[in-house]
């Protein structure tokens, strides 16, 4: 049969193309040091030391490409405010495409360490690649600052001395919402999530506090990642008889689902509550009015009322001409953790363990509110906010409804 040949040729061509794809995005210097800048970096003069090489392994292609772009832009925005230098060393970002393949992510991380001799690693969108890279990071003793992948095990079973996470854990954000849902939406829920590790971890976190409060899950639907049609899932949710729906679907999955959910006319009877990524700013403008009224929990909201956030949003919109997302904030915070740790060490990051220790000490007011890292789990401790999609002067954004309080991953 032709199909087998076809598959073989297709595969080899794909391999060839991905192999070539990585070459052209090698080094991307973060730009010249800009002399003095305001704020903490005020004293930044000309950095004269050796460049600090920061390897960024992040998705710059595929379904989650936008997330990677927002994180990189967020990092560069912060680095701009400190004159692109830390501890008297100019900072260079070396960006590699993580791709959707965990093997590729590991291979490119390796290349950054072994061929490019980076001082610090950061990035990783996917939980899968984070787990794949963990061992190698342990061996190479290069500090790795995870700027997205939320896999619970990274703060638990797969915990590494050399990995610090500035983004979130899947458990953390959803556990926060379970009890709120019980108090404000209803006693029964139907769950919908993407059928992969993160989807299941999100639902587990939610269930834990929801069931502890006395709630009951009446149905749960797991859909394949990258679905283009949710009519069956929505049919089941509608027939479940629950008081409402809670779900986690990111990227296109979330976008299509929210639109279809709106079209189905179910929203009135069956309010939709989501893990914040489903209606986050990166997809929200495209979902448009269909998202109005959707409530979600996340560690940031567009109009979060603190001076750091107002300044951040304004600076971002001036620089990039679009709304920032939670990923932009994660990029900003990641860069800040790196810069402040390097500052504290006077620029000497040759000892990986010492660099990690310095990162664990970093505390500041982030656009997401108070930011610190739990020395036990190496995972960020932050507030989770309950938000609602509303119309703000003709644009849809997430407004903060309620601060659910500070949450840390239990680490076990």
């Amino acid at each position, binding site marked *: *049969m*032709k*199909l087998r*040949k*076809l598959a073989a*040729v*297709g595969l080899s*061509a*794909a391999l060839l*193309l991905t192999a070539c794809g990585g070459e052209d995005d090698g080094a991307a210097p973060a730009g010249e040091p800009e002399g003095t800048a305001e704020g903490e970096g005020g004293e930044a003069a000309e950095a004269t030391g050796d460049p600090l090489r920061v390897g960024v392994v992040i998705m*710059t*292609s*595929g*379904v989650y*490409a*936008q997330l990677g*772009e927002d994180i990189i832009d967020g990092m560069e925005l912060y680095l701009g405010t400190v004159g692109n230098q830390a501890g008297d060393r100019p900072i260079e970002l070396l960006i590699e495409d993580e791709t959707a393949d965990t093997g590729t992510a590991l291979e490119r991380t390796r290349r950054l360490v072994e061929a490019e001799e980076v001082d610090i690693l950061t990035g990783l969108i996917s939980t899968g690649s984070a787990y794949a890279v963990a061992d190698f990071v342990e061996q190479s003793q290069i500090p790795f600052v995870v700027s997205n992948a939320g896999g619970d095990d990274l703060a638990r079973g797969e915990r590494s001395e050399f990995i610090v996470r500035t983004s979130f854990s899947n458990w953390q954000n959803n556990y926060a919402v379970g009890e709120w849902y019980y108090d404000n939406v209803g006693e029964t829920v139907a769950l919908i999530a993407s*059928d992969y590790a993160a989807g299941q971890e999100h639902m587990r976190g939610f269930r834990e506090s929801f069931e502890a409060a006395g709630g009951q899950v009446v149905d749960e*639907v*797991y*859909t*394949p990642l*990258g679905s*283009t*049609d949710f*009519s*069956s*899932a929505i*049919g*089941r949710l*509608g*027939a479940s008889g629950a008081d409402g729906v809670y779900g986690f679907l990111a*990227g*296109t999955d979330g*976008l*299509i689902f929210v*639109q*279809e959910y709106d*079209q*189905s*006319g179910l929203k009135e009877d069956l309010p939709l509550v989501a893990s914040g990524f489903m209606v986050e700013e*990166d*997809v929200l403008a*495209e*979902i*448009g009015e269909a998202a109005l009224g959707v409530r979600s929990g996340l560690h940031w909201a567009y109009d979060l009322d603190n001076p750091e956030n107002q300044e951040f949003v304004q600076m971002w919109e001036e620089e990039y001409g679009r709304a920032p997302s939670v990923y932009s904030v994660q990029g900003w915070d990641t860069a800040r953790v790196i810069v402040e740790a390097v500052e504290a060490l006077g620029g000497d990051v040759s000892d990986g363990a010492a660099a990690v220790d310095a990162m664990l000490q970093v505390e500041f007011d982030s656009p997401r509110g108070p930011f610190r890292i739990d020395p036990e789990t190496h995972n960020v401790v932050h507030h989770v906010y309950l938000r609602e999609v509303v119309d703000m002067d003709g644009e849809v954004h997430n407004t903060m409804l309620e601060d659910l309080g500070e949450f840390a991953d239990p680490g076990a």
Partner: protein
Amino acid sequence: MSLYLSQFLHAWAYASILYLLALGLSLTFGVGRVLNLAHGGFYMLGGYAGYSILRSLDNFWLAVLLAPFVAMAVALVAERLVMRRFYGHGMEMHQILLTFGLAFVISDGIREVWGARILTVQAPELLRGTADLGLFTFPRYRLFVIVVGIVVAVGLWALINYTDAGVKIRAAAADGEIAETLGVHTRRVLAMTFVAGVGLAAFGGVVAAPMQALAQGVDFQMLIMALIVVVIAGLGKLETVYWAALLVALVEIFGRLFVPRAAIFLVFTLMALVLAFRPTGLFTPRSA
């Protein structure tokens, strides 16, 4: 009951999109034995072109009408420059590699022009919201998509059976060499069907846009579904594509309803069974 009926309609709408996509694949394969793996790319290009046309002209119908021509123009250039050198026997591998490469070029090109952001297309005012069908309400736009599929199917059937072009296509498909000796310019027919197939795919892409989102990866995802439809219909057979698309859509949609995790597995199982027991296609007589 109403759940099943509404799911049936959902499957039908989905099948209509699959049909538009698989039709072009089958057409090109039937006439020239060319397996166009860039087909999903052209589908996606149709959607993105439709998005931009809608943005600038603010008219959905014009977008639906014009977007296929953008994709067809690209297809025409590709056909003139490279494709035509690789027609004929023994060139299958070249064609597969070539169109597969083209798929990546289109995918990267789209990313370059429209960025990595996920985009959506709004249905026209007339087709927004739901229609009350008595037992249940159903999105209007999906009813429209079902009608589009039926119109194309009937139109194509008439074209193939009652027009001169249809005769040539059937002749070239039945036996290229003999058709050539009878005065049918097979290569021209092939080029024509290649471009027409791309037009159909792009049309499918822009029609599907208000139902799906425009994002990286949709091209290969839809290509795989279309390939499955073509295999089940029987390679190169046009008459059966509609029924194959409907069957695949039903298996997938109802699979997702009852066993969400195994839905895709069910679709592949269906294809494997057809390949094993009816390799010429599920709806064709065994002798064909």
